[in-house]
C-alpha cells in the first residue's frame, strides 16, 4: 500500500507541475516550440527523463539477473546513440525547422507520400516501444498492490492519457525533467542504502558469484542462448546505437532548444545524465542475483530487491521508492511516446487538425493497452530492442542520408523505408512465430539490426539512383549546415542574438 501511495504522489506531482507549466506557458510569448527559450539544461533533463524508460529502470537489472552481466551492453548502446545524435542529427534537424521525422521528410523530399510512410513507421516504432512501458506499469502495480495485471495496465493507460489531457505537450519539458530527477533519486538513493544494508557477506557474494555459470559472468549478451554471444552482442549494439538516432520522440525534442548549437550541446549533456543513471541498474542486478536468484518475473527485480534485503518498515519504504521511480519511468516515457504517436496519427497520417491530437492519444493508449495484455510474458528489453531495431532500419538511414547526401530521392526513401521496415518487423515477427532452435539464424531474426540496417542503407542509396534529384535538393541540404539566417529553423520571432 505504501508503494501505491508513493506512485500516487508521483502522479499528483506530475499533474501539478503540468498545470503549473501550462500557466508558465501563457505568460511566455513563445512557449510551445518555445521551450526554445528554455535553458538547455532543462531540455537535457527532459530528454533523459523521457529516454530513461522502464527498459532502463526495470528491464536492465532483470536481464542482468537472468542473462548475465552482458545485459549492460544495452545501456552502452542506449548512451552511444547520443554520440551519433550529437554528430549527425541534432544540429541539422534543428535547422530544418521540422518538428517530427515526417515533417523532415517533407522538408527534404517535398513528398506527401513519404510523409505518410514515415507516419506509419512512427506508429510501428511507438507501439513497439509503448508495449513494454505498459507491461512495466502492470507488473509493478501488481507487485506493490496485488492489483491484477490487466487492471493495472488499463489503469495506467487512463492515468497517462488523462495527464496528457491536463498538461499536454506544453508542459512536457518540466514534467519530463522532474521525472528524470525522480527516477535518479528513487533508484540511486535506495541503491546506496541497499549496498550498505546488504552486509559484507551478500556484497561479497554479489561480486564473486560462486560457481556461477560462465555464460552469466562473461561480459557478453546472449539472449537466446544461441552459442554465438559476440554476434548477439554486436547486433544489440547496432540496434540500440543506431536506433536512438531514429527515435521519433527523441528527434522531436531537439526542436525545443534555442538553435542548432544548443541542440548539439544538449545531446552531449544527455550522455552525462545517462552515464550517471546507468551506474545503478548494475547495483540492483548484482544484488538481485544474490537475494532474488530466481524471480518469477525478472522485470520487477529492482522492486523485489529492497524487500529481500531489508525486511520490515525500512524495506517497505525502499520498495515504495523504487516502485515510484519505476512508475515515473513509465509515466514519462509513455506520455512522450503517446504524444509522438498521437501526432503521427492525427497530423501525419490523416492530415487532421491539431484538435485531433487528443483523439490520437486516446486511440494510441487503447491500442497499446490492448497489445500489452498478451505481451505480459515478453521481457521489456526484448520489446524495446525491437523498437530500436525498427528505428535503426528506417529513420536512421533516412535522416543520415537526408541530412548529409543531396542525392537522396523520393524513390530511394520510399524503397529504403519499405525494405528497412519490412525486414526488421518481419524478422522480429518471424522470431516469435517460428520458435527456432537457438543458433545464428535465431539471433539474426530476433536481433535483426545487424543485417537490416545495412540493407536499408543500401536500398535507400541504391534506389535513389532511379529517382530524380530536384534542383532545390542541394540547397535544402546546404541550409541544414549553414549557421544563421539561411536556416529556416531559426527564423521567426526569436531575436537575432539568440540564434546560433
Amino acid at each position, binding site marked *: 500500500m505504501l508503494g501505491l501511495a508513493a506512485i500516487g504522489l508521483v502522479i499528483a506531482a506530475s499533474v501539478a507541475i503540468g498545470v503549473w507549466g501550462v500557466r508558465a506557458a501563457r505568460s511566455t510569448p513563445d512557449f510551445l516550440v518555445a521551450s526554445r527559450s528554455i535553458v538547455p539544461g532543462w531540455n537535457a533533463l527532459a530528454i533523459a527523463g523521457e529516454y530513461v524508460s522502464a527498459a532502463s529502470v526495470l528491464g536492465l537489472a532483470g536481464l542482468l539477473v537472468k542473462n548475465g552481466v552482458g545485459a549492460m551492453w544495452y545501456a552502452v548502446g542506449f548512451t552511444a546513440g547520443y554520440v551519433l545524435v550529437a554528430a549527425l542529427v541534432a544540429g541539422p534537424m534543428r535547422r530544418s525547422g521540422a518538428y517530427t521525422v515526417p*515533417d523532415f521528410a517533407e522538408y527534404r523530399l517535398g513528398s506527401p507520400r513519404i510523409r505518410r510512410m514515415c507516419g506509419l513507421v512512427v506508429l510501428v516504432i511507438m507501439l513497439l516501444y509503448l508495449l513494454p512501458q505498459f507491461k512495466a506499469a502492470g507488473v509493478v502495480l501488481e507487485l506493490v498492490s496485488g492489483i491484477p495485471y490487466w487492471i493495472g495496465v488499463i489503469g495506467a493507460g487512463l492515468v497517462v492519457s488523462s495527464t496528457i489531457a491536463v498538461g499536454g505537450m506544453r508542459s512536457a519539458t518540466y514534467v519530463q525533467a522532474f521525472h528524470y530527477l525522480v527516477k535518479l533519486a528513487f533508484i540511486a538513493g535506495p541503491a546506496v542504502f541497499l549496498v550498505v544494508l546488504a552486509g559484507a557477506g551478500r556484497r561479497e557474494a554479489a561480486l564473486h558469484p560462486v560457481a556461477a555459470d560462465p555464460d552469466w559472468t562473461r561480459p557478453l549478451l546472449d539472449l537466446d542462448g544461441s552459442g554465438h554471444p559476440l554476434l548477439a552482442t554486436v547486433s544489440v549494439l547496432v540496434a540500440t546505437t543506431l536506433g536512438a538516432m531514429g527515435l521519433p520522440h527523441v528527434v522531436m525534442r531537439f526542436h525545443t532548444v534555442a538553435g542548432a548549437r544548443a541542440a*548539439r550541446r544538449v545531446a552531449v549533456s544527455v550522455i552525462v545524465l545517462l552515464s550517471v543513471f546507468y551506474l545503478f541498474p548494475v547495483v540492483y542486478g548484482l544484488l538481485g542475483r544474490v537475494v532474488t536468484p530466481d524471480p518469477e518475473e525478472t522485470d520487477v527485480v529492482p522492486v523485489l530487491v529492497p524487500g529481500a534485503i531489508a525486511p520490515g518498515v525500512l524495506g517497505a519504504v525502499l520498495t515504495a521508492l523504487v516502485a515510484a521511480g519505476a512508475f515515473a519511468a513509465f509515466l514519462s516515457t509513455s506520455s512522450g511516446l503517446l504524444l509522438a504517436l498521437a501526432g503521427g496519427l492525427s497530423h501525419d497520417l490523416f492530415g*487532421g487538425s*491539431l484538435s485531433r491530437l487528443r483523439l490520437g492519444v486516446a486511440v494510441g493508449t487503447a491500442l497499446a493497452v490492448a497489445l500489452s495484455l498478451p505481451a505480459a510474458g515478453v521481457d521489456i528489453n526484448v520489446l524495446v530492442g525491437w523498437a530500436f531495431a525498427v528505428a535503426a532500419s528506417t529513420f536512421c538511414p533516412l535522416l543520415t542520408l537526408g541530412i548529409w547526401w543531396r542525392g537522396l530521392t523520393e524513390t530511394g526513401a520510399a524503397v529504403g523505408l519499405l525494405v528497412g521496415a519490412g525486414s526488421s518487423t518481419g524478422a522480429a515477427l518471424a522470431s516469435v512465430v517460428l520458435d527456432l532452435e537457438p543458433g545464428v539464424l535465431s539471433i539474426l531474426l530476433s536481433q535483426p539490426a545487424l543485417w537490416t540496417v545495412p540493407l536499408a542503407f543500401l536500398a535507400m542509396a541504391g534506389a535513389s539512383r532511379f529517382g530524380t534529384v530536384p534542383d532545390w535538393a542541394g540547397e535544402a541540404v546546404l541550409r541544414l549546415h549553414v*549557421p544563421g539566417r539561411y536556416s529556416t529553423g531559426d527564423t521567426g520571432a526569436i531575436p537575432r542574438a539568440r540564434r546560433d
Partner: protein
Amino acid sequence: MNQRTRVTSPQTRLAQRRGSDAMGRLSHLAGRPPVPSSAIDLAAAERALRRQRRLAVRTAAGLLLALAALLAAAVLTPGRLGWAVLFFAPYPVLLALAAAHVRRAERIEDGHAAAPEDAA
C-alpha cells in the same frame, strides 16, 4: 519586461512560427526554399558542408572503433575487471567523443561565419 505580449494559443503560434497551412503542414518548405539561392554564399556553404561531413564521418568511425575496443577489452580482461570495463569504461569514452565532435563542429561554423577559409 514591461513589453506587452500578444496572447495567442500555442497552436496558433506554432502554426505562425512554422508558416504552415491550415493543416499545420510545412508546405512552404517543400521544394520552395524561402531564401533565394543568390542570398547564400554557395561556395562557402558548400565548403562548410564538406568539412562538417568529414568531421561527422570521422566521429562515426571513432565511435565504431571505440565500441569495438571496449567490446574486446571487456571480453579479454579476465574476471571481474572485465565487468568493470563494461560497467564503467564506456561512458567517459562516449562523452569525450561527443564533446570533441561538438567543439570541432562549432569551430567549423565559427570559421564559416567569420571568414570562410578551407583549412582542415
